[in-house]
């Protein structure tokens, strides 16, 4: 189990930023880890920036906020530009290359490009791009088990979105496959 991993997930409202953060948090609780998740929204109800922070740890978590995450999952260019310089040296940046160019100014970070929108579209629904990214992150860095994410779907998704669970699970797996799992 990893000691502590700080993740920032960022994109536009409507991309399912909050929900993948919550899935990660829920899976971590299932596995007995400590976890905090907290959101920042733009003032708009729809379409503004959406960011959340998730911290998963094997010990009690102090600060729920971080200015230097270990991991960034960036779904769009503006949020990638905002957060990429903050990632700790040795950290990992997951870039949705369907909507953003991989950064060139983070020489000390590992950059993982996933064309999440394209992959999700091929799978049948572009809205699952968030799940592709989450699958890639969890497949590569293993903060939780992929199975725990799947087991969290029922609890985390609102009732009207539970019909997407099979498609979400497929997208998670596809994302993990793309990073060689």
């Amino acid at each position, binding site marked *: 189990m990893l000691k502590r991993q700080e993740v920032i997930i960022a994109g536009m409202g409507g991309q399912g930023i909050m929900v993948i953060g919550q899935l990660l*948090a829920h899976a971590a609780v299932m596995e007995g880890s400590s976890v905090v998740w907290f959101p920042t929204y733009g003032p708009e109800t729809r379409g503004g920036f959406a960011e959340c922070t998730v911290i998963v740890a094997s010990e009690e978590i102090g*600060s*729920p906020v971080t200015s230097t995450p270990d991991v960034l999952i960036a779904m769009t260019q503006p949020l990638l530009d905002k957060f990429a310089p903050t990632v700790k040296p040795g950290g990992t940046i997951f870039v949705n290359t369907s909507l953003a160019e991989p950064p060139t100014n983070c020489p000390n970070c590992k950059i993982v490009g996933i064309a999440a929108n394209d992959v999700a579209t091929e799978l049948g629904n572009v809205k699952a791009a968030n799940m592709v990214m989450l699958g890639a992150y969890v497949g590569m860095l293993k903060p939780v088990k992929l199975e725990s994410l799947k087991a969290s779907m029922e609890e985390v998704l609102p009732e009207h979105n539970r019909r997407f669970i099979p498609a979400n699970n497929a997208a998670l797996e596809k994302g993990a496959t793309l990073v060689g799992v």
Partner: protein
Amino acid sequence: MANRKLMKGNEAICYGAVAAGCDAFFGYPITPQNEIPELMSTLMPANNAVFLQAESEVSAINMVYGAASAGKRAMTSSSSPGISLKQEGISYIAGAELPCVIVNVQRGGPGLGNTQAGQADYFQTVKGGGHGDYKVLTLAPWSAQECYEFMPLAFDLADQYRGPVAILMDAIIGQMLEAVELHGDFPSIDRSKTWAVTGTRGRAHNVINSLWIDVNVMEELNIRLQARYRTAERDEVRYAEYQVDDADLVLVAYGCPARVCRTVVDLARQEGLKVGLFRPITLYPFPTARIAEIAKSGSQFMAVEMSCGQMVEDVKLAVNGAAEVLFYGRTGGVVPTPTEVFNFVVEYGVSSCAADKRA
């Protein structure tokens, strides 16, 4: 472990209210506390309790006044601008010696401010807020678990001290998802209220009132309230310490900044700097005696707040000149990060400590 459930601090407040046997919730929408009325709208009826969305914060607190007059456990929740509106009612509740719980999920201010986290309502909460000589016992949770635990405690304190009790949070503590163990294991205290208005049914009539035209009677009420506050200052002070015993510099913080400071302590200790964290859990009564004791041991203090410096005044009063008290604050909705607080500690806190020691 079995009952660990991922929830927001705001949601934990609701489950805590149910565990406390809350009879009635009256509220009004305002961000960042909307999860509370939303969840209460189903949780309260499911537990045979009352939920009502009032037409305003003013009405909500007056509905609390009515339900509390009837001897029931009543509460409201809001965020900074809404709490300002409730101050009239809180003063009346204090004056009429009614128990109730008020949750404030603080946001950036003044004015309409913003919906991000703030702590600039400290003075308003612990120094009175409304008119008149009264105090509000105030609990400051720093985790979703404490949001849950503190609700039954708040209702018990309200009953015991016959006055309003505040839960002072911030947007991060309210919005943050964490695992909470819903154990339901709380002590039950005597909740009988002979003073309540319930219909006379054979007894002499009860009156709930805060109007006393006779100045001597009004003064007696104030003396009675003050006596209760002295008892609370003696019996109800709560705080937590982390690595304080050998600390050269003691960070003092509550709510989200206390969480940040806990990480700062770890960062500092990794660098060999003797930094500790003192976390007041009751903001009123403030842990004055313990801070004074620590000050005597030669530690310096640094209050860290999401305000321009409010709690730091209570730290200074407690230290009473015996040690230097520094301050680091961010405000207007900005949350201090561990890195910036650590850098400040290194630049101003620990270095000046070391300089003092050399001198």
